[in-house]
């Protein structure tokens, strides 16, 4: 119980004093996660729409694999990205290992199947509703996909927020590819892991509370900005 109070008071102290390290780590966490979210959504949402609209061989297989990949172990993703970006790997020449870019790549790989699977569920339902209408209007495949993505945008927001939740709390993969380097690749989750390892539970807990507050704030902000609770729109 003492650690909990110490953590809370440490969190308050860090926030009130606008601790320089904390601000830097928090901004880096947001930068990495939001970048991964934007890139991941840009890949996953059209993919989900494509899978909803197009009928092709092995489609069910692709969907099953996508669903299975929702449980992709982050540590394994980190290991694979590490091997690809390391000096001896195929992309070693790019010098991306232990940079925020490497962390973004790992997070994108982790969240794309998650966002695509959740989005696909919503788009599949909407497609079954719209199917006859859009066929009768003779619209192109690309127009069908755009229509679904636009009309299901609020449900897709939930899919993207699930991706955000997964990415902001991720530690295994970004620890491996980012290296948790101070002033370079340290983010809230890796900082928590480090402080816990050092035995500074109060600071670790303080950072944890800030991480939770950050996740809730971003979720609420996105809901508010997109007016998802407006009457008749949710």
């Amino acid at each position, binding site marked *: 119980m003492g650690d909990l109070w110490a953590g809370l008071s440490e969190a308050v102290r860090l926030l009130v004093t606008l601790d320089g390290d904390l601000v830097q780590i928090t901004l880096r966490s947001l930068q990495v996660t939001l970048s991964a979210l934007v890139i991941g959504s840009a890949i996953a949402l059209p993919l989900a729409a494509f899978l909803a609209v197009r009928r092709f061989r092995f489609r069910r297989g692709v969907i099953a694999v996508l669903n299975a990949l929702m449980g992709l172990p982050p540590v394994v993703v980190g290991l694979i990205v590490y091997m690809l970006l390391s000096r001896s790997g195929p992309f070693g020449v790019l010098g991306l290992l232990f940079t925020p870019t490497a962390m973004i790549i790992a997070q994108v790989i982790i969240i794309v199947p998650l966002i695509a699977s959740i989005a696909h569920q919503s788009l599949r339902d909407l497609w079954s509703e*719209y199917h*006859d209408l859009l066929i*009768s*209007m003779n619209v192109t495949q690309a127009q069908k996909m755009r*229509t679904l993505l636009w*009309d299901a945008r609020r449900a897709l927001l939930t899919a993207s927020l699930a991706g955000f939740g997964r990415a902001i709390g991720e530690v295994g993969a970004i620890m491996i590819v980012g290296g948790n380097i101070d002033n370079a690749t340290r983010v809230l989750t890796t900082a928590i892991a480090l402080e816990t390892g050092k035995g500074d539970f109060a600071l670790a807990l303080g950072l944890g509370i800030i991480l939770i507050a950050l996740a809730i704030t971003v979720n609420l902000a996105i809901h508010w900005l997109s007016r998802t609770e407006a009457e*008749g729109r949710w």
Partner: protein
Amino acid sequence: MVNLFPLTVRSAQTSRRGKLLVGPVNLDLGGAGATVVMGPNGSGKTSLLRLLHGAARLTGGAIEWACAEEEARSRQGFVFQRPVMLRRTVLDNLMYPLRMRGTARSDAQTLAEEWAHRVGLNPMLARMATNLSGGEQQKLALARAMITQPQVLFLDEPTAALDGRATREVEAVLRAARASGTRLILSTHDLGQAKRLADEVIFLLHGQVQEHSDARSFFDAPKSIEARAFLRGDIVE
């Protein structure tokens, strides 16, 4: 302007999962007036409309328009028994088919407002289409199908779920469309509606055309026993 008619249907049929839904059907349809497809439940009315429109897969035979199939598809509209509303406002629903065809936003909006006025939905332009009543939704679906000025409009029991007033309003729009040259092909259960709108009748039973004749002949002297029974109000199976 390219003419879609005559429409020639030869031994056309559609099946789903091995079950024959309609056909083989032979028809010759001219380019004017209203054709009403009638028949008991499960006779294949909806399947025939979908087949002619190209929304159901042709699994045998041929359907030939007087122009290329792609051209013909782009000049058709379809109104469903249960209107499908895009999750958008009334205005956006009306603008949608125009925008998909590349019409500029301002032109699309002007036309949408004009059509909303025609079907009496102009005070509701900013409302979500999914929040309209059944009758309002069907009028919106009708206006949305007609806003691209299709040469032929398919309607699958368009007033089945509507009350008398809404039915009258929808029929008024259909009569105006027919008068302006739009070819109507609609299915209905409503004998009165068929008499009010039909120029010719196709009577279907078990997916086969039992009778195809002008409306007066059909209602005054139906040729088949089943059609006579149907018009008497008997149960036809």
